[in-house]
């Protein structure tokens, strides 16, 4: 019976895919959705290519998925991915459909799948990936993801015991995945970087105590939040030894050397943002584990340019206006952006436009997350003005005042449409507009208004 159901589901999914493509429509979710509707155990029953790589984690999973898939394709593999589809069950089912023929036989060399960390419990036990890459685990939206311990438990419980794990050895949370079940594991990490510290400067620093004896951990070095290397002064617990190690990254580096298995190899560095260095390291470790030799990995990477979609720059006279994605309701993503913006050279105006677009229409956004985000960075004297926008602007004002931003530098705008009337027109080198995925359009029209205000002032 289940064979018939599977065959019907597959035929329906494939026909839908073909139909949607003929109509020029996005065919990356509906076929999988239909397949799962007809055959609820579709993910388990459908045949898979010999190589299935799943990528999950709080940040960087899209970048890592795309890079792994692109390098494999560049090296001659036929690959199915959910690049255009969702990272929950329907998107995964669609990608698996594209990796088999009408008769259900695998016709691709590999599937490379981005998997939502929370939805992983409905995917990993059935897809049974050859490799699972976990970029990191951080606090994210409390409504959906609760806390990183919860996501850790979901992944640890639902990852098959024989899946090979590629883990960030510098993440004191996700590096402990698979420990209990004894999964085969490899770790990647960065030995030292320009800017390393041994004390935390972030409000959120989870995993600061020993998982065995609860003593406060001593950091050998710390990058941000809980990313770094630590040991317990009481019981000897320490961060994982890494199999793929970058010895040192300078802030102006264009390449980096990875030590693995007694040999070293130098790769082009596609981005110097620390997050992206970790992403690239995850890609190198995974591809090497798959069996690509370092020269092929290097060749594959050298033709990739990481398009940093978070940033768009426009010059008006002497002022650069930059839009920077800063995921709302995510304290870690926002802290990373605030850190980055504050440490850019020159005097800047920072416009906050992260108020959730849907919540403002139908609800009142829970704003407590801003007390886990490091707005203290904005107390820097080079931040000459902060404009808080949206219905929660007065909450941001209180947060900024408590963070030490002087009163006279703060402006509140209940509507983003008014921000250009409050902005300074002189005395700064750049303007940063921080927006959420849901406020992209709002931020873009705000940027246009700000640009014309600054153009008027420059004339």
């Amino acid at each position, binding site marked *: 019976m289940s064979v018939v159901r599977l065959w019907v589901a597959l035929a329906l999914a494939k026909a839908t895919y073909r139909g949607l493509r003929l109509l020029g429509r996005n065919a990356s979710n509906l076929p999988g959705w239909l397949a799962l509707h007809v055959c609820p155990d579709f993910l388990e029953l459908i045949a898979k290519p010999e190589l299935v790589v799943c990528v999950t984690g709080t940040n960087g999973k899209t970048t890592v998925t795309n890079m792994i898939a692109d390098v494999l394709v560049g090296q001659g593999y036929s690959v199915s991915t959910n690049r255009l589809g969702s990272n929950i069950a329907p998107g995964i089912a669609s990608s698996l459909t594209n990796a088999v023929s009408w008769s259900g036989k695998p016709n691709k060399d590999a599937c490379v799948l981005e998997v939502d960390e929370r939805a992983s419990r409905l995917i990993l036990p059935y897809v049974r990936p050859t490799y699972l890459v976990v970029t990191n685990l951080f606090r994210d939206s409390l*409504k959906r993801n609760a*806390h990183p311990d919860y996501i850790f438990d979901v992944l640890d419980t639902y990852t098959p015991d024989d899946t090979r794990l590629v883990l960030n050895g510098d993440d004191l949370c996700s590096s402990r995945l698979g420990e209990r079940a004894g999964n085969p594991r490899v770790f990647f990490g960065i030995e030292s970087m320009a800017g390393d510290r041994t004390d935390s400067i972030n409000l959120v620093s989870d995993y600061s105590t020993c998982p065995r004896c609860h003593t406060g951990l001593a950091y050998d070095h710390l990058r941000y939040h809980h990313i770094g290397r630590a040991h317990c002064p009481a019981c000897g617990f320490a961060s994982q030894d890494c199999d793929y190690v970058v010895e040192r990254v300078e802030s102006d580096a264009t390449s980096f050397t990875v030590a693995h298995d007694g040999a070293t190899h130098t790769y082009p560095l596609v981005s110097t943002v620390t997050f992206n260095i970790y992403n690239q390291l995850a890609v190198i470790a995974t591809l090497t584990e798959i069996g690509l030799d370092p020269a092929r990995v290097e060749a594959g990477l050298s033709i990739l340019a990481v398009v940093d979609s978070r940033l768009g720059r426009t010059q008006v006279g002497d002022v650069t206006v930059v839009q920077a994605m800063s995921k709302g309701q995510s304290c870690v993503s926002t802290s990373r952006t605030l850190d980055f913006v504050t440490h850019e050279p020159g005097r800047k105006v920072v416009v906050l436009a992260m108020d959730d677009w849907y919540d403002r229409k139908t609800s009142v956004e829970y704003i407590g997350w801003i007390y886990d985000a490091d707005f203290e960075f904005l107390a820097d004297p080079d931040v000459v003005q902060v404009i808080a926008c949206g219905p929660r602007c007065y909450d941001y004002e209180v947060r900024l005042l408590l963070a030490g931003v002087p009163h006279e530098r703060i402006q509140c705008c209940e509507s983003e449409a008014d921000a250009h009337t409050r902005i300074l027109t002189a005395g700064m080198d750049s303007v940063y507009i921080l927006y959420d995925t849901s406020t992209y359009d709002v931020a873009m029209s705000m940027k246009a208004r700000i640009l014309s205000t600054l153009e008027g002032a420059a004339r």
Partner: protein
Amino acid sequence: MKIEVLYPEVCCLYGDKANWLYLQRCLPDAEVIRTALTDTPRFAAEDVDLIYIGSMSEASQELLIDLLWPYRDRLREIMDAGRTTILLTGNALELFGTFIRREDGTRKEGLGLLPLHAVRQAPTRFNSLIMGDADGTTVVGYTSRFSHAYPDADLPGLVTVQMGVGLNPDTRIEGIHSGRLYATYILGPLLIANPDVTKRLLAELGAPDDLPFEAETYRAYEKKLAEMRRPGLALD
């Protein structure tokens, strides 16, 4: 003035840390004691003026019950003596109950200081805005949790909910106010979001009730209150 923050390394989820950092701003002369997981609590041997515990993971809840287990009688004595304010936010209130029922049906025995028990239901997450009355003051807040609490006996509530959920979906009673113990499922910067509540708390502690950036704090509160009163609001 002594403020004891219990186990801030783990009881710091969802912006709750802001509550004690804010109290520190309100009471610049107070001694803030941050008791680590490996420390003996200060309240064990001497009176403190305020004990605070914030939101934590479910695993941390079970660890905290074990850590506080030897001090159950002392905590009972402190609650009865009425010289110490105890403030519990988020799921910290569940530690003080009789037990927590896990998803698999097993139980973790609680400290037994309040007649209520909690029932976890992960992966189902309950999210809700809360607005309600606490002794003539309108309290605004948010809860996001895997569990509900069920009173085993009549319990004096902290907030009568006008919008949102109480301790569980079948009650309008949110939180517990017993003597000088204030416990609420509301998480995050409760004291910053509710200036009237903070003023009362400071008065109970015998401190001046001036708030840092008082005008701006009230403006944010009033704006949120007006939005919360819009009809047909989505609560989650």
